[in-house]
């Protein structure tokens, strides 16, 4: 109970350092109980006015501070607290003092500069303790004091190997499927799925403005042109379907699309029985036929 209370108190342990218009608080994880090699973590909170700017060069630099104390890491964060700014300086020290008895060592202070103003961070101390002695039974040979190495832990690689092979094979299969879909080498002889891309593009345009429908007709024309290898006019659709029989079943849709396109772009009487939905359905039907190849 006492130990727990002490730990909580040590976590909250802090003391203020006075300054003209800045307040300094130093917190450390605990004020005592450090052995040689232990890391000592501390947070220095400096509260300044909101417009204060920290001069980064005044921060302590990682490296040896004394013969038995190093500073390992320095981090700074600024937080606005109401009309003030609080600077949190996280410091990590490492203790190399080999104590023969329990005593306090001093963590040296330093100064932080905020513009022209200098804020002193006071020195503080932590308690260090010696390592406990051990008393093994006397052995005749010095090597008998050594303990045998821990046996190597046997880890079965069978399952990871199987998983690696399975997932590797799956990855290759998926890559092959994607490559075939996108007509990457060695599937370059396979036609690119241009109607599939168009159907997705048109679906995003479906709720566009007044120009969405003519734009969509033009997009479909350009995609059909790509499939044909050159501009395809309405009266040449039969020749195109003879060359690309996979689309032959869609001839009525082709005829309706070209009739609607004629009305939209060349006639004064616009077709009112052909809308974006039918256009999108046609593009999707083309994509399905394309996918089936």
């Amino acid at each position, binding site marked *: 109970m006492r130990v727990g209370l002490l730990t909580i108190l040590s976590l909250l342990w802090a003391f203020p350092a006075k300054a003209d218009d800045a307040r300094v608080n130093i917190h450390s994880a605990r004020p005592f109980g450090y052995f040689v090699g232990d890391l000592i973590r501390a947070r220095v909170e400096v509260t300044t006015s909101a417009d204060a700017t920290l001069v980064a060069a005044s921060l302590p630099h990682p490296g040896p501070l004394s013969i038995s104390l190093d500073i390992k890491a320095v981090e700074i964060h600024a937080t606005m607290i109401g009309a003030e700014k609080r600077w949190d300086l996280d410091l990590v020290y490492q203790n190399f003092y080999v104590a023969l008895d329990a005593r306090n060592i001093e963590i040296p202070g330093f100064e932080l500069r905020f513009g022209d103003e200098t804020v002193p961070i006071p020195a503080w101390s932590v308690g260090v303790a010696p390592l406990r002695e051990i008393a093994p039974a006397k052995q005749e040979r010095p090597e008998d004091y050594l303990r045998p190495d821990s046996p190597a832990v046997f880890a079965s690689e069978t399952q990871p190997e199987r998983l690696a092979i399975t997932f590797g094979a799956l990855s290759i299969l998926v890559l092959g499927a994607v490559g075939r879909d996108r007509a990457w080498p060695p599937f370059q002889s396979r036609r690119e799925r241009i109607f599939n891309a168009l159907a997705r593009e048109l679906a995003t345009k479906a709720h566009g403005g007044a120009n969405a429908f003519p734009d969509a007709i033009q997009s479909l024309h350009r995609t059909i042109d790509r499939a044909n290898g050159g501009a395809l006019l309405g009266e040449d659709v039969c020749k195109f379907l003879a060359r690309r029989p996979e689309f032959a079943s869609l001839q009525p849709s082709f005829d309706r699309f070209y009739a609607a396109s004629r009305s*939209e772009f*060349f006639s004064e009487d616009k077709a009112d029985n052909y809308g974006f939905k039918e256009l999108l359905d046609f593009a999707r039907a083309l994509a399905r036929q394309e996918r089936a190849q």
Partner: protein
Amino acid sequence: MNEVSQSESKLAEWRERAIAFEQEIQKAVVGQDRVIRLVTIGVFARGHIMIEGDVGVGKTTLLRAVSRAMGGDFVRIEGTVDMMPGDILYHTYLGDDGRPRVDPSELLRLAETLPVFFFNEINRARPQVHSLLLRLMAERSVTAFNRLYRFPYLQVFADRNIVEREETFELPAAARDRFFMEISMAAPTDREARRKLVFDPVFQDVDTLLERVTPGTMDYREIGGVARRIQESVKASTTLESYVLNLWQGLTRPASVGISLPDVDVSMLVKGGASPRGLATLARAARVRAWLEGRDYMTPDDVKDVFFEVMAHRIFVDPIHTLRGDEPVRQLCHAVFEATPVP
């Protein structure tokens, strides 16, 4: 009924007559539906038509059938190497009294009522004759006996033998440009049509064959008015106008629209032609084609359908390609249509 709908109704009636005109010609000329359609377009665009092709494919029969179906008078002249312009204009003979006489030729006598002047094998005639023909085609008038003869209904139909080169005189570019269309005519490819032409006795006697064509399917005197009405009533949208201008750019500067042809340097291919007059003629022919298809607006299909026949003889390529005939121009036209997106 207002004036506009009256005009529309009259045009629809004339379209039926034009279709009937085609059907009459098809009675005498089998397997040549496309050539007949092009000739019909030429008739209703009031353009002069040149037909060229191999020997014995039916060029003369076609033009005689057209003349008969159109009704009115008909004058035919055979081009020969020794023909002079006077032979076309004047009829010279010895009178009963043994004295030489010079009268107006048949062409001049029928000037006021002549719808068809058929010049057979035009490239056998000399350039002097071509010059007279150029005037006749461009102005529909000639001067003879110290007066002006006008030909208000005249359309010139000519055919050209492209096989023989001996004793022939190629038409200059300016004369070819006067022709509304140059239609290439080959033997039909349809097997049944070929069988008929070879074994059906009807096709052995041209005069008997032409009797199958009902004369005067149309009143030739009204064709001029109908042609004007067609041009006024068939509309071209801004999209179509833009398309035709893009085609024009593709023709004159093929490299600028990314056209490339095998074994041809397209940047050096076109040396001239494809003039504004040529493009205007193209629009005129496309309008008639749209009308024959039953529309009151033009589409890119109309333009494409008549493009080669209207434009090819107006495009002049580098002489280095001359020996390849019309193939480079055909390839260029095809490539221009493929490279020009629409709408």
